[in-house]
C-alpha cells in the first residue's frame, strides 16, 4: 500500500494542486460573470441618516422631503415634487456621476431629475450631477417630479462613473 502512494507521489501532488485550482478558476469565472452581469450592487449607509464611502468620496447623510411651496414651478396636475439633497465630500480624486435617480421601493418606478421640466434653469451652486473638478464639499440638489400616487420609501441611486457596477443607495421616506 505504502509503495503505491510512494510510486504515485508526483501525480498525487499534481492532483492535489490541480483539482482545487480547476475548481477555483471555474468558480471564479462563473461568479465574476454573475457579479458583472448584475446591473448594480448597491452600497447603502448602515443607518438611515448615515454616510457612505465610495469612489474615494463621502456621500450623505441624505435629506429628502416633499416640496411644499411649488409656486412658480411648471408642475402638472396630480404631481408633486420630491427634493433630495446629498452632501458630497470629494477625496483626492473627485468622482463624476450622472444625475441620481429616484426609485419607488414598492413598485420599482424610476424618475430622473426634473429641474428642466420644472422650469428652473441650472445653477452651478445647485448641481444635479457630480463635479469631477470640485475639491471642496458640495451638495447635490435633486428635484424629482412624481405622480401623487407615488409613495415612499424611495431609493436614491447614485452611480459614480469609476465604480461601476457599485452604486451608492440611500433610502428616503419624505
Amino acid at each position, binding site marked *: 500500500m505504502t509503495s503505491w502512494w510512494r510510486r504515485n507521489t508526483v501525480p498525487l501532488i499534481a492532483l492535489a494542486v490541480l483539482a482545487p485550482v480547476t475548481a477555483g478558476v471555474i468558480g471564479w469565472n462563473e461568479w465574476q460573470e454573475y457579479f458583472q452581469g448584475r446591473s448594480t450592487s448597491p452600497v447603502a449607509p448602515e443607518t438611515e441618516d448615515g454616510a457612505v464611502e465610495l469612489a474615494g468620496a463621502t456621500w450623505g447623510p441624505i435629506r429628502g422631503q416633499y416640496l411644499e411651496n411649488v409656486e412658480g414651478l*411648471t*408642475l*402638472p*396636475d*396630480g*404631481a408633486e415634487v420630491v427634493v433630495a439633497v446629498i452632501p458630497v465630500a470629494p477625496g483626492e480624486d473627485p468622482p463624476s456621476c450622472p444625475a441620481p435617480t429616484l426609485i419607488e421601493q414598492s*413598485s*420599482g*418606478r*424610476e*424618475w*430622473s431629475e426634473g429641474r428642466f*421640466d420644472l422650469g428652473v434653469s441650472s445653477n452651478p451652486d445647485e448641481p444635479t450631477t457630480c463635479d469631477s473638478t470640485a475639491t471642496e464639499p458640495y451638495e447635490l440638489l435633486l428635484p424629482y*417630479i*412624481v*405622480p401623487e*400616487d*407615488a409613495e415612499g420609501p424611495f431609493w436614491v441611486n447614485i452611480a459614480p462613473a469609476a465604480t461601476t457596477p457599485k452604486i451608492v443607495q440611500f433610502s428616503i421616506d419624505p
Partner: protein
Amino acid sequence: MMKKALPWVATVVLLIGAWFVQLITPSDDVAAEPFLVAASIGSEAVGREIVVTVLEVRAASTVTSSSGWSAEGTWLLVDLNAETVTADRLLQGATLTIDGLEFRASERMDSIFSTKLVPGIPRTGTIAFELPDASLTGTGILHLSLGDDTRLDSVIELTIPLDELTTSAEESVHVTEWATS
C-alpha cells in the same frame, strides 16, 4: 396489384400531409411578434411599458408648429397623451400603415415623437405623418411603441377610418407639455 399500389398511395398521402403541415406552420418571426393593444379614441390603452390615450385625429393640407415652422402637403395629425409605466423612455415608435405602405412619423417639427415619457405623469402632444397626396383613403393603422424595435413588446394599435376625416386647410402641431387632466 394491391402491393404495387400501396407505396404510391402512401407517398401521395404523406406528401399531401406534409404540404398541409407546412401550410399551417407559423413562420419564424411569429415567436417574436409584438403584443398589439387595441386603442380607441378617448380611452386609455395600456401596454407593458407605455400608456397612451389618443385624443383626436386630424387631417390638414398645411401644418404649423409653435416655432413658426409650417409646411404644405398631405398631413395626418394624432393628438395624444402618453406616459410610461416604470422608467423614463423616449417615444420612438410611431408608424402609420395605409394600404400596405408604412410611414414613419415626421421629424420635421418639434412634436411628442422622440420626446421623453415618464412614469405616471402623462405628457400631451401631437404626432404628425406626412403622406403622399391623395393617400387619405381606406383604413390607416397607427402603431405606437417606445422603441423602433417592437419584437415581443407591446404596440398600441389604432384603426383610423381615413375616409371619415375632413381635411382642414390648416392645423397646428400642439406644443408637447404636461397633460392637464
